[in-house]
């Protein structure tokens, strides 16, 4: 069980132009938990992972395991095993040799290696696969071999690069359960990177969201939906309903009228109101209800998505499936912003909020 601290971590690549891949990153990664580094491609998450692994040297800052700086320890002695996105099984080795690679590098005797390899293959539910070739395995099986190869060295930290993105949809759920199961069983501190917020939410205990090399929010998965730190974070997690206004106490004055909100930490002044599509109530009267016209709808079986318009501003509403029969396109209805579901974020600096 290892706690990982990243302190003021920065990485600058000096190529034909300078690229600040990671900027002053502070992160405290809890021991025995799964932490996701989430962000769009090019946000510096893989660079961060490689700095933890010891494959890249930080330009500034420190990486420490259990309070001990590991910057002076080369990758091969750091005990941070990484599983790459395309598994990278050594093609000229059998499955058994692949899994035993780390122990062979540690000069463990042959018999012990054999025992450990078969134990590991059992753990990843591929018993007896020692003599297969990596090429003969499916993508999911290759990934499980790669996982076994990383786990056999009993690493302090397990690093996963996009663990689910290379898998077919039906394999993803299985693999997720599988990784969670093994991680819970071994209690190993796990850090993975992904660009897919869905993947982060279903697999991680804690998520660190990065944009442009900077940490934007470090929180529990549900917080990104309920309490995003900015419009950008909200949008990355599928937030589409934004309304600018001016906060005063427990009221926000918006172009669509005054909205009553619960007490929130954010200072009085300009704010942006966010409400998730599944929290807006179409056709409901009462506090915070505005008049909106239904523009269009999509019936998706489990629910119905409506697009509503108020004063040239568009809102998306996810309502129960049956409401497809209740509301007609073109109808003007009340649209309620439930007080307890409203979340206020600071206005974007560029001040260019999309109205549609």
């Amino acid at each position, binding site marked *: 069980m290892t706690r990982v601290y990243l302190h003021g971590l920065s990485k600058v690549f000096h190529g034909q132009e300078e690229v600040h891949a990671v900027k002053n990153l502070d992160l405290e990664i809890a021991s025995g938990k799964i932490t996701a580094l989430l962000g769009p491609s090019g946000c510096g998450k893989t660079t961060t992972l490689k700095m933890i692994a010891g494959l890249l040297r930080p330009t500034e800052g420190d990486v420490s395991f259990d309070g001990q700086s590991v910057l002076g320890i080369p*990758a091969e002695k750091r005990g941070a095993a990484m599983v790459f996105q395309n598994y990278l099984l050594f093609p000229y080795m059998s499955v058994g040799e692949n899994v035993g690679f780390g122990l062979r*590098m540690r000069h463990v005797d042959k018999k012990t290696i054999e025992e450990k390899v078969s134990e590991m293959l059992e753990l990843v539910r591929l018993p007896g696969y020692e003599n297969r070739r990596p090429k003969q395995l499916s993508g999911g099986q290759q990934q499980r071999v790669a996982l076994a190869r990383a786990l056999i060295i009993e690493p302090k930290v397990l*690093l996963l690069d996009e663990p689910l993105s290379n898998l077919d949809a039906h394999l993803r759920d299985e693999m997720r359960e599988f990784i969670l199961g093994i991680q819970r069983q071994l209690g190993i501190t796990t850090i993975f990177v992904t660009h897919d917020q869905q993947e982060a939410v279903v697999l991680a205990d804690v998520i660190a969201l990065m944009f442009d090399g900077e940490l934007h929010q470090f929180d529990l998965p549900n917080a990104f939906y309920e309490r995003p730190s900015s419009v950008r974070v909200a949008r990355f997690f599928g937030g589409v309903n934004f309304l600018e206004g001016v906060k005063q106490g427990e009221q926000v004055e918006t172009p669509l009228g005054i909205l009553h909100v619960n007490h929130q930490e954010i200072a009085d002044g300009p704010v942006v109101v966010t409400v998730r599509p599944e929290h807006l109530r179409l056709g409901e009267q009462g506090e915070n209800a505005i008049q909106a016209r239904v523009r269009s709808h999509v019936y998706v079986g489990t629910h119905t998505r409506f697009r509503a318009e108020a004063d040239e501003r568009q809102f998306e509403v996810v309502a129960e499936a049956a409401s497809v029969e209740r509301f007609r396109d073109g109808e003007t209805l009340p649209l309620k912003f439930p007080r307890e579901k409203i979340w206020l974020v600071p206005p974007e600096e560029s001040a260019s909020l999309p109205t549609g």
Partner: protein
Amino acid sequence: MAVMVAIAIAIIVPMLPLITWSFSFRWYFPDLIPTSLSMRAWKYVFSRASKAPQAAIQGVQISLVATLLSLVTGVPAGRALGLHKFRGKKLVQFLILAPTIIPPLSVVMGIHVAFIRYGLAAKMLGVMLVHLIPTTPYVVMVMSSVFANYDPEYEEQARTLGAGLLRTFIHVTLPAIFPGIIVGGMFAFIISWGQYVLTLLIGGGRVITLPVLLFCFAGSGDNAVTAALCVLFVAPAILILIFSSKYLTGESAALGGFGA
């Protein structure tokens, strides 16, 4: 197997007249085959008097060392060109390839002066070093295309599993680039083996290899001995080609020149 047979036919058939010559005693126009055969030329070639055995041994030594040295320099150079982008890459590529376009004769005079100063002229080591001029471009060309198709993340993977730099190279990099090393090394050996001008100028007539000897006999008018020497000269190249043909075919061959 079929490939090996095809290579053998394509190479050995054109050599049949040469082989016939080497066994001939008398072969005058307009006879289709020699009127009488003999082992005279072969016996002479394999005797100490012809200097051919010593020349062959010396040639093998020179070519092996030249091959090794061009691999030692060419593999890292090929890696840099195949994997990385850097300023002046095109210029470096051109300079490395230049010896395949520019006749080595144009620079070897200057090199000779320098080699005399460093005591390398008329020495085996000098000849080995000067052979790097024509051999290195081929090794670099082969290795850069090998590395262009190579994923260096395999090395990172090995590092995080506990392999140090040296063991990563031995267990991960080397097996992946091995076909390229065989092909590049083979090119280097054959090119070095066939060098005449460079060997003669730097060796100063003291370092005798088969091509040097061959030119002497070709001027002497003894066709049978010249033919026997020719066969001896070509034999290693053919053997190498046949043994390494499996690396030249199929997916392991990565011979596309400089990969981007």
